[in-house]
C-alpha cells in the first residue's frame, strides 16, 4: 500500500541525508522508525507526503480507488489527493495555537472543501459534529471550544491525533509523537495509535526502543540516511548499537 524506494537527498555541501531509504508498508502494520537525530527519520516522513523534495527515488502510495500516486513526483491536485489520504500526526506543538481545538481538528479535512468555502464560512455543523466525534476518540471532546494555546503538551498531542483521525486517511504518519512528553503521557499516546494501526497502517518516528518494542509490529532503523535494520521490534543489544552507531565495547 506504500512503497518507498531508494530515496536520495543531498544537502548543500554534498552530504547525503537520505541515501537509498527503501521499505514497504502492508496493512495492519505499526512501524516504528528509530535512529539518531539527523539520521533522516523525519525527512523520510516528509518525503512520503511530498513536503520535502527528493533528488531521486520513488514513493508509491496506493489510494482508496486503488490508483497509485507517485507522491515524490506529483504536483497540484494529484499531490493534494494523495495528501488527503495520508494523515500526518505532527508534534502537538505545531497546531495552530490561535484557533480553537475543534478548528484544529477540522483542518484535517480541509482538503475536502473548496477554497472559497474555507474563506466564507469554513466547515458545516455536520462536519463540526464529526470532528467532536474524533475528539471523543482521544477523550478530549469537552475541550472542543478551548483556545489551543491553553492546552498542555500531552493534550495538544492528542488533538493532533484527533485531526489525523478526522481526516480518515489510509495511512498515518506520526513525526516524533511522544518526543516532548513524560512517560505516562507517552504511553497514553501509543495506546491511542496502536488500535488505529489495526485498520490503517501507522509509521512513527521514535527515540525510545522500549516503547517501540512494546507497541510496534515492526521496527526500521535508519542511520546516516540508510536503512540499517528492518524487522522485529525485539531489538538485540547489537541491533541497537548498529542503529545508533555505538561501537561495541568488548568486556573482559
Amino acid at each position, binding site marked *: 500500500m506504500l512503497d518507498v524506494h531508494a530515496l536520495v537527498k543531498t544537502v548543500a555541501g554534498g552530504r547525503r541525508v537520505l541515501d537509498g531509504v527503501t521499505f514497504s508498508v502492508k496493512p495492519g502494520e505499526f512501524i516504528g522508525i528509530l535512529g539518531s537525530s539527523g539520521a533522516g527519520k523525519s525527512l523520510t516522513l516528509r518525503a512520503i507526503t511530498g513536503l520535502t523534495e527528493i533528488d531521486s527515488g520513488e514513493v508509491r502510495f496506493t489510494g482508496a480507488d486503488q490508483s497509485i500516486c507517485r507522491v515524490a513526483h506529483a504536483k497540484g491536485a494529484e499531490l493534494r489527493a494523495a495528501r488527503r489520504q495520508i494523515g500526518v500526526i505532527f508534534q502537538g506543538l505545531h497546531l495552530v495555537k490561535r484557533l480553537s481545538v475543534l478548528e484544529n481538528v477540522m483542518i484535517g479535512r*480541509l482538503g*475536502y472543501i473548496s*477554497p472559497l468555502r474555507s474563506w466564507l464560512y469554513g466547515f458545516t455543523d455536520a462536519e463540526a459534529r464529526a470532528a467532536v466525534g474524533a475528539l471523543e476518540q482521544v477523550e478530549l471532546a469537552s475541550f472542543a471550544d478551548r483556545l489551543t494555546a491553553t492546552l498542555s503538551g500531552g493534550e495538544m498531542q492528542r488533538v493532533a491525533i484527533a485531526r489525523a483521525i478526522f481526516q480518515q486517511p489510509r495511512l498515518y504518519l506520526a513525526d516524533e509523537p511522544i518526543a516532548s512528553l513524560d512517560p505516562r503521557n507517552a504511553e497514553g499516546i501509543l495506546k491511542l495509535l496502536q488500535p488505529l494501526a489495526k485498520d490503517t497502517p501507522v509509521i512513527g518516528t521514535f527515540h525510545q526502543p522500549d516503547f517501540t518494542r512494546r507497541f510496534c509490529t515492526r521496527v526500521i532503523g535508519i542511520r546516516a540516511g540508510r536503512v540499517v535494520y528492518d524487522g522485529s521490534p525485539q531489538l538485540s543489544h547489537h541491533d541497537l548499537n548498529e542503529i545508533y552507531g555505538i561501537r561495541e565495547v568488548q568486556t573482559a
Partner: protein
Amino acid sequence: MTAYSASRRLLRRAAIGAIVVTLFLAAALRCDVRPEIFRQGLGQGPNFIASFFPPLWSAAGEMVTPVLITIVLATSATLLGLFLSFPVGLAAASNVAPAWLRQPVRVLLGVERAVPETILLLFFVVAFGLGPLAGVFSLALGSIGMLGKLLGDAMEEVDPAVVDSVRAAGATFWQTIRYGLLPQVLPALAAHTLFRFDVNVRNSVVLGAIGAGGIGEEIAHSMGMIQYERATIAVLGSLLVIYTAEAVSGRLRRRLLGAEA
C-alpha cells in the same frame, strides 16, 4: 595600551559639537534668519494669540459635519488600506512569494513610504477633484506602504511547521493561507492596523487643510478668512477627534497584546 582614552573621547565630542554648530549657523545665514525677525514676531505674538479668544462657541454646531467627515475619511482609508495590504503583504513575504515577485514589491513599498501623503493628495486631487475621496485614496495608499511591509514581516515570522501541518492535510495554497498563516499573523495585523488608524486620523486633519475636506479644511478656511475665534473651535474639534482616536486604538491594542501573554 587600551583604546579607551578620556582625552580622545573629549576631542571627538568637541569636534562633533563644532560641526553641529557650524551647520546650524550656515543654515540660519542661508535662510536669512536674523534676530530682529524674532523680536518683531515675538512682539506680535501676544496680540495674535489673543485674537483666537474668546472662542466662537456658536460655531460649534457647524463643526459636527466636518468632524464626522474626518472620522469617516480616516476609517475608510484604514479599511481600504488593510484589505489591499493583505495581498501586498503576502507578495512581500519571503516564505510565501517567490523572489521575482517579492523583490519588486518590497522596492515599490519602500518608494511608496518615501512619498508623503500630502504629495499623494496632490495627484489624487487631479484625478478625483478636491474633497474626501482624494483624501481616502491618499491615506489608503500611504497605509499600504506601512501595513504591507509590516504584514510581510509578520508573515515571515510565522512557525513554518504549523503551515506545513496544514499543507500536509491536502490544503490548497489559499486554504493554507487561511488556516495556517492568517491565525498566526492576526494579532500583529490588528495591532498595526489600529496604530495606522491613529496615524490616519492625524493625517486626515492635515490633508483636510490642503483640500481633502473635513475639520482640517475648517481650520484652514477660518484662518484664511481671518476668523480666528472660529478657528479656535475647529482646532478644538480636531484635538477631540485625534485624542479620542488615540485613546480608543491604544486601549484596543493593549487589550490585544495583553491577550498574547
